């Protein structure tokens, strides 16, 4: 598994962005974060793990509880703030284009596969 996760990949996911929003002004436990989502607890844990791995979140031991808070320093390292948002849409539209090219008449993927 790739341990050094891409920050932009991490924040391209809507659930992870929602998690970042939740912990932006206060630190929260994994349980408190999970209670805001319908998603199964292990799924939220996985998201927290990814966000922690790319250092957008930091863990803080607070008695017996672990609190998550946002790593402002890491956030500031990300220079162009609109780029990930743009990239998310660009990736989505690239996929749309690739999918639809199969439906082009003539020398399309669909046409080729039919000929084979």
């Amino acid at each position: 598994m790739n341990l050094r996760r891409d920050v932009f990949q991490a924040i391209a996911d809507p659930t992870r962005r929602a998690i970042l929003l939740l912990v932006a002004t206060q630190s929260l436990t994994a349980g408190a974060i999970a209670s805001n989502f319908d998603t199964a607890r292990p799924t939220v844990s996985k998201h927290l793990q990814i966000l922690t791995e790319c250092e957008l979140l930091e863990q803080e031991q607070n008695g017996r509880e672990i609190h998550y808070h946002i790593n402002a320093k890491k956030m500031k390292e990300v220079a162009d703030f609109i780029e990930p948002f743009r990239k998310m849409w660009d990736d989505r539209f690239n996929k749309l284009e690739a999918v639809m090219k199969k439906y082009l008449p003539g020398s399309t993927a669909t046409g080729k596969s039919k000929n084979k």
Partner: protein
Amino acid sequence: MERKTKIHAEDGKQELVITREFDLPLELLFKAYEESEIVEQWMGTKVLKLENKRHGGWQFETSDGKGNVVLRMNGVIHEFVPDQKITRTFEMENTPFAVQLEFLEFEKITDDTSKLTMQIVYKSVELRDQMLKLPFAQGINMAHNRLQEVLSKPAYRNR
């Protein structure tokens, strides 16, 4: 290479515009939004409902690898004009984000190329900036006030 997808977001406005030119005829671009089976392929979501008509509804959901639902989105379709436009609302279920209004315009450039212009209107300037800049330092500061409201709701106080 020139970036195909462009984001236009003016300071202080509660909307943003996404434009993209496709190497696809207009009809195929529109078809990508019209047929559930195709939407599923490029959005990576399951289409629970897609009623392409005035007052129709739509609902998509995404799952993780194990089949757990990660996110469910829904909205109402206000206008549906084939090869021209779709006007709809968009809401992410179980998130603090208010519903947004989306205007999608489809245009022919040449016989083989087309353009999509997507205008998204948010409830407030603050919400737009959150959605746009959320992961970044600037976004964190601007979102602060609204976050206080969101986080003071009872659901967020349970620790």
